[in-house]
């Protein structure tokens, strides 16, 4: 497979260490916070931003993200509204153009209802670079959707876990572009505490596989120490639940977001 040139692949070709990807849920805490948080994260220097498309039944997520999804839906967030909010954010003539790579993370059903091709087309139009859809397994993606995603230059990021077999990891590596999302342990989001020896053993095992794609570690990365450890074994890490909790407690101001990112990167 040839790498599609977009902001994610450009990023990884320029920087391969200590990348920080921060997740937030669109429409949380308030419906119109999306651009405020996105610009705040960009200003704070994060490398990638993952925007959650809220879903009523996010089974791979823990309580924190589920509650933020529920609140966002109560606020009236939808995929259409999210695209409306992102419209024009990449335009250079705007006062503060968004240049950071953007991923959308969510579940397959809202995407199916929007229409997969319409979704990819809209992602391309508003400047979304990739998606993470945990309940769209690789085989179904390849069988049905890969050509559409590629046509619009949208990267599909796949997950691996400690239980993923070596042969499947090789297959995922072969069929992925952008990066591989390493789920740190057998868990849902926001549920692990610290990095255990068995997690380190898994990180080392994957590191030794010399995959062609860069790797970001997610689930359980919630402070400077866990971020640092993840960066020893991968190209960077993804923080989600901890940022949602921070937004809830400290608000969405640029200062609050900067404080959070500094805490993680220190």
């Amino acid at each position, binding site marked *: 497979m040839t790498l599609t040139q977009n902001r994610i692949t450009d990023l990884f070709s320029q920087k391969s260490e200590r990348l920080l990807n921060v997740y937030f849920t669109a429409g949380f805490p308030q419906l119109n916070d999306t651009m405020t948080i996105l610009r705040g994260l960009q200003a704070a220097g994060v490398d990638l931003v993952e925007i959650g498309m809220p879903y*009523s039944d996010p089974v791979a997520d823990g309580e924190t993200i589920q509650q933020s999804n529920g609140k966002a839906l109560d606020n009236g967030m939808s995929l259409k509204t999210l695209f409306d909010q992102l419209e024009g954010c990449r335009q250079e003539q705007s006062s503060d153009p968004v240049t950071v790579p953007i991923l959308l993370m969510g579940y397959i059903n809202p995407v199916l209802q929007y229409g997969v091709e319409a979704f990819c087309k809209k992602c391309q139009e508003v400047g979304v670079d990739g998606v993470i859809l945990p309940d769209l397994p690789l085989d179904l993606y390849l*069988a049905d959707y890969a050509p559409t995603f590629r046509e619009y230059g949208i990267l599909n990021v796949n997950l691996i876990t400690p239980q993923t077999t070596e042969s499947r990891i090789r297959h995922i590596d072969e069929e992925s572009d952008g990066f591989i999302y390493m789920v740190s342990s057998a868990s849902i989001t926001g549920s692990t505490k610290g990095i255990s020896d068995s997690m380190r053993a898994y990180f080392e095992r994957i590191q030794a596989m010399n995959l062609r794609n860069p790797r970001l570690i997610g689930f359980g990365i919630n402070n400077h120490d866990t971020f640092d450890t993840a960066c020893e074994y991968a190209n960077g890490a993804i923080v989600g639940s901890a940022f949602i909790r921070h937004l809830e407690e400290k608000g969405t101001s640029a200062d609050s977001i900067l404080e959070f990112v500094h805490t993680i990167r220190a």
Partner: protein
Amino acid sequence: MQTTLEPQTSFEVSDKGFYGHFGGAFIPEMLYPNVEELRQNYLNIINDPAFQAEFWQLLEDYVGRPTPLFLARRLSEKVGATVYLKREDLCHTGAHKVNNTIGQILVAQRLGKKRIVAETGAGQHGVATATVCALMGLECIVYMGSIDMERQKPNVDRMRMLGATVVPATSGSQTLKDATNEAMRHWINNPVDTHYIIGSVVGPHPYPDMVARFQSVISEEVKKQLFAKTGRQNPDYVVACVGGGSNAAGAFFHYLNEPTVRLVAAEAAGQGVNSGHSAATTALGKPGVLHGSRTILMQTEDGQVIEPYSISAGLDYPGIGPLHAHLFDSGRGDFYAISDDEALQAGFQLSKLEGIIPALESAHALAALEKMNLKPDDVVVVCLSGRGDKDLSTYSKHL
């Protein structure tokens, strides 16, 4: 779905787990190893003669099978056709659910699993799971919506008495959908030594097929029993209630390819199909993905799952199994929406006419008889999926 579409004439599941447009395994990578392990092994395990021998022995000696096929004379007179009741309410634990849990606990043992997780709506599947875990000495954790725990308290007590841990699901509508989410999360967090016993013909492939196979004992027995009583194996209609649809899948299974037999599914219309308080999935839903498979789903325009409602906790689910979605989509099945009131009246009617208090779920199937335009020479088999003891507090409010 594009390339995964299979020919739509078959009611067998495809290699990839599809029935027509519906099915598949839409699961996060965290569940892939578990589901794949099951997919690669379930047919070999359940076709193994030693498994078969143990399964059938337990169904006979422990569950009490075969369950009777009862000619309901007074009900027949009332509805104007010959009505037989397949008495799954006489199974050990009080419902058909145990047919499946016996099968799955034997599968779990052969996969070397140490712990069982399950979801439950009315509590019948939870009780059936707790029962087989006690029988086999495995740890049992059952997720149940906190609202369902209130309205089905006797079943909560039964599960606890059987040694299970009952965990309240407090998210969303706090009913079956959310209990299923929580059970899936538990499985994600405990992937190696835990087997998830899904109680209906829902979830990722191979669950719908595996559960349908275990429940197919219902129609297998009906064929033999009906022949013995009438000289014909095939009724004109088989009627069953559908929430997820496991008793219906079992009652329909051996008739799927018998086009002279109409398959009738009763869904819960709650306070009315268009009342905003309903679980009539085929009437209100459209194709979508929930809990690991593509099926017909009650959802908003944006693809958010709509909270269902039914007086019957076992039917309070926003989707149906993919086999049922295919039966509806292909026209093979007739789907009726039965309101809470219609179900209650059918439950009271059966109690008075035949001395059988049905589960509220089964009462929905009985209520469908009134809507079917039956002819005097029609032979109808109704799957009486469970007994009504657990629903007495609900019934008593309407006495």
